[in-house]
């Protein structure tokens, strides 16, 4: 390897490393959403970083690093962590019950309730809801990551939202508060309001 090649390789490695560092917060949030445990999430992120580093030549520059990393993380979760996740939740409860929240303390209670409901969704619905609803990934990227058709992603997202609304009892006048009473009424009428 010539000195120039060496410099180029170093630059490439540094650029890739910086990309990984930028994605760590998103990887942790996605891993926690999948596994229901912050501790498992961090183990999962560590495995993902190691695999990504070892397979860096397989990443195509110009494509979404986040989508690529999510694919690795998700595969690692389903092949190695899923069972452990259930065991941890059985013995310690979900992270929703234990996790400290950062930032907006006002929404603390709402957030804890939401996380409990989220943890009750089937995995296949929860992962796509997180991907398209929170991570900034497109339906196309989510479909590619999960290896299913876009229509399947849309269907899962819809079912996930419906199930969440049911679990959170959104729609009852009490839960929505006075300013959202009309929303509850509209929901009861259903498709006529659309």
């Amino acid at each position, binding site marked *: 390897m010539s000195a120039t090649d060496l410099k180029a390789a170093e630059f490439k490695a540094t650029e890739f490393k910086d990309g990984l560092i930028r994605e760590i917060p998103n990887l942790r949030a996605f891993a926690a959403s999948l596994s229901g445990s912050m501790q498992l999430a961090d183990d999962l992120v560590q495995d993902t970083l190691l695999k990504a580093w070892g397979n860096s030549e397989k990443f195509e520059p110009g494509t979404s690093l986040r989508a690529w990393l999510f694919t690795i993380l998700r595969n690692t979760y389903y092949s190695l962590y899923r069972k452990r996740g259930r065991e941890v939740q059985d013995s310690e409860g979900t992270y929703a019950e234990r996790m400290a929240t950062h930032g907006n303390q006002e929404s603390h209670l709402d957030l804890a309730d939401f996380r409990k409901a989220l943890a009750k969704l089937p995995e296949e619905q929860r992962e796509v809801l997180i991907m398209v609803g929170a991570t900034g990934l497109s339906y196309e990227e989510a479909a590619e990551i999960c290896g299913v058709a876009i229509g399947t992603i*849309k269907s899962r997202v819809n079912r996930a939202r419906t199930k969440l609304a049911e679990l959170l009892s959104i729609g009852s006048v009490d839960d929505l508060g006075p300013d959202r009473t009309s929303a509850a009424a509209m929901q009861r009428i259903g498709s006529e309001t659309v």
Partner: protein
Amino acid sequence: MTNMDAAMSDPGASDNDDLDMVLDPKVQESIGRSLKAHYDDIVSAPVPDKFLVLLAQLEATEQRAAGASSDERN
């Protein structure tokens, strides 16, 4: 427009019209906000040092390996 909104107005999303109609837009919006709150709460949490240490070690190992192979040639 968010991805969620896009799905609702996508004419191609015909396989789930029955489900598309179930949720009121305000309920959807409320779920969307909670999703972001859940996710962003973790995203904004401090990143444990161990990840940065790990990546620095991987990078150092690779540079040593590259340096060694370069030395062999020269």
